[in-house]
């Protein structure tokens, strides 16, 4: 009885109010390992460390069962937009 991808998504959605959220179960089904990409207004003005802390504390309950949580991206909507534009121009 581990944590599910849906469970992590639900918790993060309710606590972080993300504009973009991607949770990938990297455990192969046992629910012990997740990778996350998250974009939220709440990250505005916060350092990367603080952003990761916010995600970790939002998932405090789940973390008891999760062995590995990899936060691939923790961006503000503005940053996400900037990144998308730069990658678009690179592609073009």
């Amino acid at each position, binding site marked *: 009885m581990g944590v599910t991808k849906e469970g992590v998504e639900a918790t993060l959605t309710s606590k972080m109010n993300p504009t973009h959220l991607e949770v990938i179960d990297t455990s192969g089904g046992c629910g012990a390992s997740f990778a996350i990409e998250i974009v939220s207004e709440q990250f505005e003005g916060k350092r990367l*460390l603080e952003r990761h802390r916010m995600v970790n504390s939002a998932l405090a309950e789940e973390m008891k069962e999760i062995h590995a949580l990899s936060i691939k991206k923790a961006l503000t909507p503005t940053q996400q937009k900037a990144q998308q534009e730069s990658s678009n121009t690179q592609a073009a």
Partner: protein
Amino acid sequence: MAAATLNLLSIRASSSSSPSSCTNYSSRITPHISFYSQLSRSTTFPSLSFKLPNNSNRHSAFIIVSAVKKLSELEPITVPSKPDDFSDELPSDSGVYAVYDNNNDIQFIGVSRSIAASVLSHRKSVPELCSSVKVGVVDEPDRTTLTQAWKSWMEEHIAVTGKIPPGNESGNGIWVNRAPRKKPDIRLTPGRNVQLTVPLAELIDRLVKENKVVAFIKGSRSAPLCGFSQKVVGILDSQGVDYESVDVLDEEHNLGLRETLKNYSNWPTFPQIFVNGELIGGCDILVSMQEQGELASLLKK
């Protein structure tokens, strides 16, 4: 002295790559090789043992077959002048190599996991001493075989010239890269049985404040035991930054560190990287910061 003279001759002879001079040289040097084989255990020539009837029985037990040819049997390769040519001209395999200066004197005998890369780094740091190289690729490069090959070349060189190559003398730091990676990990206590007079948290506090960059990792910096720690070590090495490392799995010298550090930093996982006394984060954060180019500027501060 005669041996030293012959060696010089032999190198010149083989570098001129004319067949006649090579034959000439090998016939001349043979008596000296057999002399050397009496002293050395690493001789690779079973044929020599029958030339030494008095000693063959005693020595046969010690004969270790070396994985590489003898130095004297190899042709030197001119060190390429362009970095791009190194991987074409030299093998990128594991093995031993001997670097010759433009007087055809051996400057250094080294062991490498990539001969081309090692010679390239020598060429960059001491171009004036890297004229040509002889290389011996080791097919099954475990540590013992590599060391044995290196020893056989060193012994051969010493037997012929009576000297250690200048670059292999102790205290010569020109050739051996004393990279920060080789720095020992920091141990917070002398051992688990020693009673601490200062709480562990205070030791951590001092450590991260007195050192610019400290990485708490699983395993040692030379052999990290988890992928994330390995990545962190790789990133810090690639930044060329001088950093300290602490093995959080070392129960002998860092007993209780994991729990204490988690509380100290309020961060649940390892590795943890501190810069200027402040937690930067774990592997993910370090990777992100490197991608964004923020890491280099942070480390410069």
